[in-house]
């Protein structure tokens, strides 16, 4: 299952026509202690580069943009009870939402793990 990364510090796992989206370990480190995650409604459409979720840390609210366009099929209910999962397991249990991929060509040009790592190292 290929994993892609964006320069907005989201990760995307692709399995067939479905993608799982979360924020990276680097992103959670920058945000600090997360106390609330506002996720998109199941059935809603998210568009690439547009607001899809909001992460509230102790410090501030931060927007999370949809890395690709699609229809949301599932939101991670575990984050409702335990938003700190985004801190403790950002790239696994702390996933945000799943969507059906509207346009696979949007995946072109996203980074792989190695490219993302060198991107973070350059920041």
């Amino acid at each position, binding site marked *: 299952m290929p994993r892609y990364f964006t320069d907005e510090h989201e990760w995307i796992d692709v399995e067939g026509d479905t993608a799982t989206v979360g924020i990276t370990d680097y992103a959670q480190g920058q945000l600090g202690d997360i*106390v609330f995650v506002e996720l998109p409604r199941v059935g809603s459409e998210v568009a690439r580069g547009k607001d899809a979720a909001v992460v*509230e840390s*102790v410090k*501030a609210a931060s927007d999370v943009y949809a890395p690709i366009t699609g229809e949301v099929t599932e939101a991670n209910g575990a984050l409702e009870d335990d938003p700190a999962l985004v801190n403790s397991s950002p790239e696994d249990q702390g996933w945000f939402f799943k969507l059906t991929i509207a346009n696979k060509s949007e995946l072109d040009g996203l980074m792989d793990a190695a490219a993302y790592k060198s991107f973070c190292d350059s920041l």
Partner: protein
Amino acid sequence: MLSDDNDSEFEAETATLPLDGWHRGKGARMVEFAGYWMPVQYEGIVAEHLWTRAHAGLFDVSHMGQLEVSGEAAEAALEAVLPIDLSTLKPGRQRYSLLLDESGGVLDDLMVTNAAHRFYLVVNGATKWDDIAHLREHLPDEITLTHLEDDALLALQGPEAARALARLGLDPVNDGWPRVEEMVFMQAGPFSWNGVPLRVSRSGYTGEDGYEISVPAARVETLAEALCAQPEVQPIGLGARDSLRLEAGLPLYGHDLSREISPIEAGLTFGINKRRRGEGGFAGADRIQRELAEGTARKSVGLTLEGRLPAREGAEVYAGDAKVGRVTSGGFSPTLGHPIAMAIVDSAHSAEGTPLVVDVRGKRLSAAVAPMPFVPHNYFRGDR
């Protein structure tokens, strides 16, 4: 125009604190605040917040303005610019005061210490240059106003602060003045530490027991190291400073307090001392006296919110469908485990327990007016 642009670019250049390298060495994440690079967090805001509530946290607040007012008639001159009663402020005592404009708006809030034959003021970092200009304009020429730019300022806050600071063995400069562990809340005085002159006050901005310590910038790193070598002490960033002060119900200038909010609306009547309330004769006195007599149309209140979603500054507050106010600062309380906020609301909706609704990005969050502080103060008043 060109020179104006150049000036503003020059002013926008971010300054570094004397402890800049020390913070970075401790793993701090640095952000721009009040014109300085400042540590927002080291380990993480929640961990630092809880550490301070349980042990002792060391905060670098060297961005704040430290001023000294001296001269024959300094007392009268200061009373002309602040609504403070200095006749009841003894040497070695500190008091909260307010710098007001002519219409009763708040230019800044500050601490005033009677330092025997002079007064020592601590003002907010973001407002210090305006404060200095305002004071210089309004103080008589024969009064000396000194900006103590070569001094850094540390705050040591938390229930174990006194134990940690006592171990450093500071000597009171004045015979018969208390040692640091004997001082009570809002007591202040000069000390010597291995020959380094310090100004120490038992006060702070977290609601906890603790101290603020003014130290020559050249020696601040030695002092910070000595304090952090104590097992009770960890360095704490600005992030936790803000969440701690919010839990303590202490207003933040520029947010909960501004030129648009009067001290009476903000619930800071104690910042205008009793004799002055009666006599007037300070900037904004007309409005202050009128508001004291007639009450205000709106008031600052505390809010507790249901759920986990914090309401931030600017969020609108409703009673039913009617907009009745706005959040002036808000966040998630690490101690309480739910969101809290300060808001300015119509006085009709300011009674404790009043149910209100806060709008956050279209979500209507249930809230209630709550007494402040949200977390009890833990000041040392000599009774334990």
